[in-house]
């Protein structure tokens, strides 16, 4: 669309007119199937009707909208150019710190404020699962720069490890958690080995394939995974052995009886919320610490220049495998929590869409930024939720929001990078939480 004018100079009215006309033309092309034609139920049969009036309005609105939009943009730009350049003090690290603590405070207070609102806490739990997954994938994509499109495979490995350990050996959540993490890490290394030499697009394709392989195995290996029917009645996690049941087994205590509370279904929901909050925070501390260690710096150096890493005597193989293993392990932990929260898992929960969502969270957040992942997870989970009122336009809104964010913030929501070590210790600032 070279005809859509992207000029730096102020536009002449003729240029603006041409630009808006092009946009209107595109709107017409798109609008014919989307607006111009509609299906109507005529006594059981579907018939296609035309809505030329509406199409005309749509095209007209696009034209006028574009014209005004460009005019406003020009005004803003010329005003900005007229303003003298102000010396900008970079306050990003402090701002990140403040936002980080605010988000942490809000997330701790949330279940207390909304203690009776199941929907809010459930949604917040979902956000936190994605935050944890985002932090895990951030190691692989954000820090080590290895584009992984099959991250959901490790999530699935974690979830299925717990489900299978429970159904065959009766393991509890807490027993299965470390094993599932180790299992996912093993799969991470298994995936890592054959793709050591690949990078960029090729790496992405192989990881995409890996994600699909795991899912297809889960669908087809019925004896192991119960196929598409999934595995059900997975036990919920307990608080140091105290279950959240209405009627605990004879001679045992439940959370409610132990603390002398009236039973409430909300207890478990809130407990799950705090559990994932703690897991996510541990993940954050773990990854933030690793980032400041030789291994974390090596990941970032690998992202920046693999050949230079080699010339510095760095074993690139180990660096890559450690990134895959740690990222996979964190995904595995999140998977165990997911299985325990849902109580039922099937391969359907681990499709490519999930991988894409997690990757979108990392990219949208700003590669490598821990707080960015939180903000992006909030946006990506909450936008579709908030959009429910708009029914069928929900995904359209969602897509538009994504495009707008990427236009305004091409480096992600938080693109600034905090050094892992400073010569001048006086200027210390952290990006934790």
């Amino acid at each position, binding site marked *: 669309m070279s005809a859509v004018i992207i000029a730096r100079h102020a536009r002449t009215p003729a240029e603006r007119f041409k630009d808006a006309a092009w946009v209107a033309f595109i709107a017409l092309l798109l609008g014919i199937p989307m607006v111009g034609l509609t299906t109507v139920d005529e006594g059981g049969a579907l018939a296609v009707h035309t809505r030329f009036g509406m199409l005309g309005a749509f095209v007209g609105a696009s034209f006028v909208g574009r014209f005004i939009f460009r005019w406003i943009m020009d005004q803003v730009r010329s005003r900005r150019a007229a303003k003298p350049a102000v010396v900008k003090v970079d306050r990003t690290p402090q701002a990140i710190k403040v936002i980080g603590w605010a988000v942490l405070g809000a997330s701790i207070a949330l279940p207390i404020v909304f203690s009776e609102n199941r929907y809010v806490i459930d949604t917040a739990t979902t956000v936190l699962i994605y935050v944890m997954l985002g932090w895990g994938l951030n190691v692989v994509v954000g820090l080590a720069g290895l584009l992984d499109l099959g991250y959901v495979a490790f999530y699935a490995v974690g979830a299925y490890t717990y489900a299978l350990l429970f159904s065959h050996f009766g393991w509890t959540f807490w027993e299965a958690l470390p094993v599932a993490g180790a299992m996912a890490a093993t799969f991470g290394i298994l995936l890592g080995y054959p793709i050591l030499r690949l990078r960029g697009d090729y790496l992405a394709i192989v990881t995409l394939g890996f994600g699909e392989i795991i899912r297809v195995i889960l669908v087809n290996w019925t004896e192991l995974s119960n196929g598409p029917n999934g595995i059900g009645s997975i036990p919920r996690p307990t608080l140091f052995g105290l279950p959240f049941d209405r009627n605990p087994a004879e001679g045992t205590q439940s959370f409610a009886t132990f603390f002398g509370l009236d039973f409430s279904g909300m207890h478990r929901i809130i407990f799950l919320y705090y559990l994932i909050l703690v897991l996510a925070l541990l993940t954050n501390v773990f990854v933030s610490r690793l980032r400041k260690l030789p291994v974390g*710096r090596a990941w970032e150096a690998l992202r920046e220049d693999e050949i230079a890493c080699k010339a510095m005597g*760095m074993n690139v193989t180990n660096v890559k495998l450690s990134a895959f293993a740690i990222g996979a392990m964190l995904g595995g932990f999140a998977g165990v929590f997911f299985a325990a929260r849902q109580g039922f898992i099937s391969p359907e929960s681990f499709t490519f869409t999930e991988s894409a969502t997690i990757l979108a969270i990392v990219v949208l957040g700003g590669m490598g930024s821990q707080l960015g992942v939180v903000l992006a997870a909030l946006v990506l989970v909450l936008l579709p939720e908030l959009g429910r009122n708009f029914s069928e336009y929900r995904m359209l809104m969602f897509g538009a929001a994504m495009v707008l964010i990427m236009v305004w913030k091409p480096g992600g929501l938080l693109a600034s990078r905090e050094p892992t070590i400073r*010569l001048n210790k006086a200027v210390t600032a952290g990006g934790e939480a």
Partner: protein
Amino acid sequence: MSSATLLSVENLTMRFGGLTAIDDLSVSVPAGKITAIIGPNGAGKTTFFNCLTGFYKPTTGSVRLVHPKKGEMRLETLTGHRVARDAQVVRTFQNIRLFPKMTVLENLIVAQHNFLQEASRFSIAGIFRLPGYRKAEAEALKTAAHWLDRLGLTGIADVAAGDLPYGTQRRIEIARALCVDPVLLCLDEPAAGLNPRESAELNTLLLSLCREEGIAILLIEHDMSVVMNVSDHICVLNYGRKIAEGTPEEIRNDPQVIKAYLGEDDEETASGGIAA
């Protein structure tokens, strides 16, 4: 100053399919001196570097290093990163390869990865910040600070390396290589893109590294003002073969060399360059 041989390359040949990039090359690099490799574009200089530093595996031939502490090593048998890690033969690149988004200091700390990684004990000592790791980190920081100071980079230590001017980036790359604690420093066109003042500074730096720190330097360079002023020994390559070897004075007057630079179809380094 000893003139013992540090590195001796014997009958090195590197073929890529039908193309022979290096043909039966034998060179020896003395310890504690500056040796320059010059030659027209495409003479095989960088390929030679790649063979030395483990990036290519030579087709035939041997590369022996007499390591001051570890004794004799065969570099052609070491793969990839092990040349830098075990043999401490460290290189820079013709087109600067820094870690652009990391700060200058981080670049220098990353160069000490193996030392720090060992101290972090599979990151466990590092995660809990045990004293052993903290001590190692302080030591690495000290090494980095030393070289930052030496190359005049202290003021910009916390700036992202990619945001700095080209000449500065060249110095950072050398500082980073020095942090690996090299016994042989291989510099691939360190003066490329530098202005005359910067190349003069580079001369001083190379000479002081060699004379004061005793680091042997192997240098690929087109800038004759650098080559002729700092080199103790020059080796001239053309079409993968060594056509001359000797002191700067000898090379300047060598008919073969003059022919290689003037008689062939090379454009950029004419006689003026040689005489500089």
